[in-house]
């Protein structure tokens, strides 16, 4: 499937993530967020790079996810901070959606 180091992890069924929604998942020590925007699924680290908070407790507006604590916004397609107090990007992960399943490539053993 992919030769990069890491593991493809099944996150959920396709029909469990609707347009404009996001979902939090924990895989071992990783906190991962998945989002559906314009039909496509994106995945990022779920912890804000500014202060400790889960982005999925915040707000998804188009391709921007906003942290609930201080309003830092990240582009879910690139992980780059857009507005607000964050200056560091968050990690993004490769996503594959096929056969009604969403899988994310995570940096695990």
């Amino acid at each position, binding site marked *: 499937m992919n030769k990069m180091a890491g593991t493809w992890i099944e996150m959920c069924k396709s029909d469990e993530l609707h347009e404009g929604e996001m979902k939090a998942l924990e895989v071992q020590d990783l906190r991962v967020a998945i989002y559906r925007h314009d039909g496509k699924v994106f995945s990022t680290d779920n912890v804000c790079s500014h202060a400790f*908070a889960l982005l999925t407790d915040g707000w998804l507006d188009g391709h921007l996810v906003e942290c609930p604590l201080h309003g830092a916004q990240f582009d879910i397609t690139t992980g780059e901070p857009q507005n607000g107090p964050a200056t560091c990007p968050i990690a993004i992960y490769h996503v594959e959606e096929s056969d009604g399943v969403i899988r994310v490539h995570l940096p695990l053993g």
Partner: protein
Amino acid sequence: MERVVVIGAGVAGHRAAEEIVKLASDFRVTVLQDENSNPYDRPPLSKEFLASSEIAPPLLSGQYIQSAAVDFRANVRVEHIDRQQQAVTGSDGRRYSYDRLLLATGSRSRLLPLPAAINHHVHYLRTLRDAQRLREALQPDRRIAIIGGGFIGLEVSVAARRRGCSTVVFEKAPFILERVGSRRLSDWLSQLHASDDCEMEVNCGPLAIEDAGERVALKWNAGEALFDAVVVGIGVEPNTALAIDAGLHVDDGIVVDHECRTSDPNVFAAGEVTSYPLRSLARRIRSESWSVAIAQAQVAARNIAGIASDYDELPWLWSDQCDANIQCLGMNAHAAFHASLRSDSPEKWLDVGFDQAGKVVSAVAVNMGREMSMLRRSLKRKEPVPAAIASRLEPSQLAIMGHDRTEGELRGMSG
């Protein structure tokens, strides 16, 4: 080529300079900052930076300092603005000519009138240097008096306790934080801090502070005690002296329009120093808020670059205390009546304030960032209160003017 001079490299001046060179690559921007440091972010100074010696100074990304489009100069205080010649004079003896000038001079700590002998025990918190000095003073087992139960005082008290100090917060009003928060927030935070071993002396009356050798003696209307250090957080005053000297319209802050323009069309102002208009409140206000500073910097930068932009948002600010996230939107005092969001936990709540016409003018939230974000978004887009919030609102017991409405009336207005 247009020349822009920015006075001040706090978050407003810093962000504006970044935006201007991004929007207009042929502009040359000079940033003059009186402090002898690179630009840094202030919110962490009263929080994580103060609480742990391991935390590095919160410097702002310094890309533009290396950029050829920005000439950043630390340790230069502006002494005079010559609006006729369109130039400012710095303490380095140089003149900096401008086509557009941005005043982002911020505020300074309001000082207590104190005898000089005890000054080395007394701290204020505004600059990175203040924070470094205060952090040194917050050694384990020291007893710290905090004068002023506002956001800064309360945040400092948490940081001090994390460093092993004991703290007493003195507030002359009957409730902490009443000016920016609400009575419910005062009560909630009083309990939070009490459960975190903070002593609180509200209604403390005038304080007498005296030199007691290695310590400081504090007397208030209900007692007296010795402290190792005193931290004063009794508010700020806007740095308007340069603007007044230059003959700009100043009323509390530097008066600007929705475009962040002062009474001189070539001079803009952004951040805490401004007195700015809000259509929804039909008045001008001055805000001590990081997010207002950022938003105004962006608006000023766009207008300086020739792109029309308008600032008209209720001020929003946050505080983090003992793992609680507090957010305030607008000013509670501008609300005629309130409604509370139904919540499943006493640790999570949101009160919304309405004016007489039923328009949202304020909100206070504890650990409800998502709902606050939804509310702010709808206000910005001039949309009704989102149904997900409106359907959970109940008239609250916190009427401040006796105008509370029934639930049905509220639904009708917000729906």
